[in-house]
């Protein structure tokens, strides 16, 4: 036992004292906050830039009210500009519109039918898919709004009744937590959940890879034979994983501490206030749980693979394949976020390789039953048990093996032997 602690101490201190640890600890939050701020900044700058949409409106009655609606409802920084004049035939005006889009004079163009009030046909000319945002978020809502208004007027609905008919509903969202109720800010909740998931993802990959390279380094410097004369391979592996994982947790503790300190002072970054309310005990505990278990699962696999490889290059193919276990759930995130409690989401989030990310995602954005979280932890523990036994086997077998580089086939054969 004391030998494991000696190994843990060495591996832990070596990492915590290293320059790269300090740099990652400082830069980590900066990169993380970029993840939150970038989308906000991007949408901000997008609004600032004025986009000119050319319009062919034969009846001449739609452009003015649409511009007014866009402005009133703050739909976006879009300016409508009439193309040609009423004397010109419609097809000539459309041709001019197309030319102006191609020459870059116009961002895109909107062509309305002659009797738009009764046959509401609109054609949208544009150069790229990204313009569809303008169509969906600006032009269509504005046009629908003014069309509805025009039709009410046509039927001579009284003004008071008219406003009553077109008014939409008013919404407010409240989150209920153990600490009480709170107005919900969608951006913050999703942002925070996303940041924590990114932390799990990056830290498991990064520290898992640390384990891999640490094992390979000991092999290539022939240090391992000296060590194995004093420690059993199993103890050496365990000590290494605990020490490296401890360094990861320390890093997270520093971040959380700094985060608390900043949020107490009410520091705002780029108009985005740090919201500590999101970090409920449930989320914090499951974060640590999923990070620790996820790290252990991947680190044991990485350690076993490292023991079989002679160089970091040898290990790359295995590293890439293993990392897929983390990349795939990242790609599924949006899907899970839309329906966190669907059967598919539940099943996927219970798969041990995925659950550090997917189950944690569900905990942060929804409120999954406790048994599901407990089950995913239990499944993780069972997988860790299996993978550490397999890794122990590979370790004993591979750690003194030099020469041939392994394949997946030879790894599986070695584990089964």
């Amino acid at each position, binding site marked *: 036992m004391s030998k494991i602690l000696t190994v843990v101490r060495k591996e832990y201190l070596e990492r915590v004292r290293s320059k790269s640890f300090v740099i990652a600890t400082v830069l980590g939050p900066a990169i993380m906050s970029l993840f939150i701020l970038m989308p906000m900044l991007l949408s901000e700058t997008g609004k600032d830039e004025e986009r000119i949409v050319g319009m062919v409106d034969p009846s001449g009655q739609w452009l003015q009210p649409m511009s007014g609606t866009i402005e009133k409802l703050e739909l976006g920084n879009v300016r409508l500009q009439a193309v040609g004049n009423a004397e010109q035939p419609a097809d000539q005006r459309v041709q001019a519109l197309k030319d102006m889009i191609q020459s870059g004079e116009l961002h895109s163009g909107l062509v309305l039918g002659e009797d738009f009030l009764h046959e509401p046909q609109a054609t949208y000319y544009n150069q790229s898919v990204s313009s569809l945002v303008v169509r969906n978020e600006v032009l269509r809502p504005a046009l629908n709004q003014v069309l509805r208004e025009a039709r009410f007027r046509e039927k001579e609905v009284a003004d008071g009744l008219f406003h009553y008919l077109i008014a939409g509903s008013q919404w407010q969202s409240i989150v209920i937590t153990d600490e009480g109720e709170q107005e919900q800010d969608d951006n913050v909740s999703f942002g925070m959940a996303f940041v924590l998931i990114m932390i799990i993802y990056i830290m498991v990959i990064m520290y898992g890879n640390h384990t891999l390279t640490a094992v390979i380094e000991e092999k290539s410097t022939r*240090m391992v034979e*000296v060590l194995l004369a004093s420690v059993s391979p199993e103890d050496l592996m365990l000590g290494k994983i605990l020490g490296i994982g401890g360094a990861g947790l320390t890093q997270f503790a520093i971040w959380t501490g700094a985060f608390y300190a900043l949020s107490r002072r009410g520091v705002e970054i780029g108009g985005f206030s740090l919201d500590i309310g999101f970090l409920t005990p449930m989320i914090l505990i499951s974060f640590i749980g999923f990070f620790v278990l996820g790290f252990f699962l991947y680190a044991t696999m990485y350690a076993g693979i490292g023991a079989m490889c002679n160089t970091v290059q040898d290990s790359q193919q295995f590293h890439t394949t293993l990392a897929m276990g983390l990349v795939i759930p990242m790609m599924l995130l949006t899907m899970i976020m839309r329906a966190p409690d669907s059967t598919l989401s539940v099943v996927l989030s219970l798969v041990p390789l995925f659950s550090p990310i997917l189950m944690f995602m569900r905990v942060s954005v929804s409120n999954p039953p406790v048994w599901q979280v407990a089950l995913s932890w239990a499944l993780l523990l069972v997988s860790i048990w299996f993978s550490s036994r397999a890794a122990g086997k590979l370790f004993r077998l591979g750690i003194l093996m030099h020469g041939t580089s392994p394949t997946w086939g030879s790894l599986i054969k070695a584990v089964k032997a």
Partner: protein
Amino acid sequence: MNAQPSTLPGPGQPLLTLRDVSKRYGSKVAVRSVNLSIPRGSIYGFLGPNGAGKTTAIRAIMNIILPDSGEILFGDTPLDGSLRDRIGYLPEERGLYRKMKCREQLSYLAELKGVPRSEALQRADSWLERMGLGEYGHQKVDTLSKGMQQKIQFAATFISEPDLVILDEVFTGLDPLNIELLREMILEQKEKGVTIIFSTHMLAEAEKVCDSICLIEGGELIVDGTMEEVRRDFPLKSVQVAFADQSAPPEDLPDVLHREFKEGVWRLTLAEGSDPQALLPRLMDSGPVSLFSANRPSVGEIFLEAVARHRGEVRS
């Protein structure tokens, strides 16, 4: 942590015993039912050519590989983890953490052998002093020269004050001055009562330090005993001869088992019971003899004869 020294056998009694130890890698037999015992307080030469199975046997002793069969005793108890803490091991493939400071490195390796940290740091300082590396304690290993790194490795082997030390090809890659320094230190440790297994393929080196030897060839033990016993079992004679005119001894000399020409001198190994003096007239017929001496056979000569005998036995 360390077992009580009272479990140690008396001087000259077997400290480490291998019984019927075998290890095969796939179809290749690395060690075939080796039996040997190493007397306490001796320097025991583990000799044989490269690839003979020396390192495999040592790794089995250190539990780095598991033997397929056989048992290994320390005193009269089967060797286990805590007893292994009393064995120091310097592997043929040297290994140190390149980015770790020398003092940290030494104390870490001592701690892994069960030495408490404060004690380990003290011992690290004193070993650095003894090795003349006192000022390098806080430098990283990879800033040191190769010779210095070897000394650190050597210190790391002895820092846990083990009862038994296994040195695998300890002099490889060292200059003569450092070889001399380490040889003195090995003898000094022996004086302190440390038992040493000295594994090497350089037989001449072994002859200078060993009290007992074994010879391993093709995974099998073919000779085992004290130097006196081995010499008694192989009562060979050895003759050194040189000619002033560079001529060679005649091909048809009787009783010559083996001949070797090195640095202007011929070394002839004679069969048991032959008389070196009887050779002299024949040699003088070949040319003007400038050097003639009759010696004890070298370990190398014994080894060649042992291999020849062993092969004869296997054949018959």
